[in-house]
């Protein structure tokens, strides 16, 4: 049974078609890496999974995307509920201009949770989940901007986890971070996949190879190949994939 399933998805920015007939499924508790050169459509595809592309004017989507067997592009889909279930982490760490504590509590508060004990418990759990607790436990009331880039990014992950999603989308989550912070995030991804289904966009081949179970290679808006990460990186079925992962183009 698939957690996420996209069926013949086409996507348009105005007249430009950005995705062509993408069919791709992901199992629960796996990490899927989306790779490909800039402009290949991997981020666009990622953003379809929590309907983030709805925010862009003049876009059009065809086909269907199912999460837990529900078509998320159906008319009666509650987009707020969908986004609560499908958390997102961005390229650049973007904590809100609030305290560390309030950053994580934000998602709970906007969803109407007012019980202080519940909020406190979830905040602490989420920060522990991203292995940030020891570093911030004494400065929860300080601004999130005082943290380093890597800590900020882990805080953003904690912020996403606090509202208990089941899917986590990561859009090049380490591209703005140094190698040590990057490896911490990668360790975290290993830890998190026990509980979540993760989709990660990355430009870093080694990262895709290290963290993912499956890898999907996009090129010019088309899904060229998707298979077990091991297979993709050792004996890809298609020449284009091999050219890309060996660095011959892209």
């Amino acid at each position: 049974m698939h957690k996420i399933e996209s069926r013949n998805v086409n996507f348009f920015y105005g007249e430009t078609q950005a995705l062509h007939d993408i069919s791709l499924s992901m199992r629960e508790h796996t990490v899927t890496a989306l790779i490909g050169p800039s402009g290949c459509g991997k981020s666009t595809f990622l953003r379809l999974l929590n309907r983030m592309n709805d925010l862009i004017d003049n876009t059009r989507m065809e086909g269907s995307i199912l999460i837990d067997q529900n078509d998320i592009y159906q008319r009666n889909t509650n987009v707020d509920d969908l986004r609560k279930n499908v958390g997102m982490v961005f390229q650049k760490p973007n904590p809100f201009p609030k305290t560390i504590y309030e950053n994580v509590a934000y998602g709970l508060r906007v969803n109407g949770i007012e019980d202080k004990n519940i909020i406190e418990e979830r905040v602490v759990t989420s920060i522990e989940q991203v292995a940030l607790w020891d570093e911030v436990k004494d400065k929860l009331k300080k601004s999130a901007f005082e943290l380093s880039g890597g800590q900020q990014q882990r805080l953003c992950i904690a912020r996403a986890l606090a509202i208990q999603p089941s899917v986590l989308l990561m859009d090049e989550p380490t591209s703005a971070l140094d190698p040590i912070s990057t490896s911490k995030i990668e360790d975290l991804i290993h830890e998190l996949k026990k509980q979540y289904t993760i989709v990660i966009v990355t430009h870093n081949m080694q990262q895709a190879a290290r963290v993912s179970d499956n890898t999907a290679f996009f090129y010019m808006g088309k899904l060229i190949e998707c298979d077990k990460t091991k297979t993709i990186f050792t004996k890809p079925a298609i020449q284009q994939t091999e050219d890309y992962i060996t660095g011959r183009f892209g």
Partner: protein
Amino acid sequence: MNSENKLARKKRITQNIAFGIFTAISYAIVALLFVILAFIVVKGIGVISWEFITAMPTNGMTEGGIFPAIVGTLCLVLASIIFAFPVGVFAAIYMTEYVKDGWIKKVIKQMTNNLAGVPSIVFGLFGMSLFVNKLGFGDSILAGGLTLGLLVLPVVIRTTEESLKAVDATFRQASLGLGATKWQTTSKVVLPIAFPNIITGLILSIGRVSGETAPILFTVAAYFLPKLPSSIFDQAMALPYHLYVIATSGTNIEKSRAMAYGTALILIIIVLISNLLANALRKYYGKKVKMN
């Protein structure tokens, strides 16, 4: 080798000339500002005294002070900001956060720009016919404040729009991604980040409002009113109009010349103080956004 040297030299000379021109122009602008300021300070400093800023004008406005004009101008600034700030900020929020790209947005934008280009005397006439006559406010601080408010509305809208647009889109996406509504996102994330810059709009409007003469001419300004306004339905004196009066149509223009410069100086000082205040406010909130 030789030609390379020549090229390098030519590049350097061009660079120096361009740089020189830019420097000269910048200094000239600053110098000009100083000359104007110095001129007014030199001519006006003589009449400035505690009495000048706290007393009523006397003897056909050739003696005494300009207290009611100072109070009038402050009232007008306040009234116009109370009207224009919320309206302008909400309009800008609507335009940047809610309306989709399309003809409605284009029309509103174009109209806002047109509004900014309307001569201030036209605002004065409009204010007179709408607020003073039609709505029956009479010549009053309310009518004048609303007229001035309309005048600065485009400034507030535009600066607020720019500050909202400057907020990185991923902040909005992160908030919406947590299941927040658009309004929660706007009020709890976007506005706090943009707030320090929105304050700049406020600064610009205060400067503009306190110096305008034409819009208050038919809506509020009193030629001579040696008492303070007691409600928003009262007429009031105002610095720019008072300056105009004693410089062109006072009872004794020669005698009140020094007072005219003094009035100008006070006007400039008020604008300066409000700018400094707003700047401090902006810095304070800028820090708070980071510390919060």
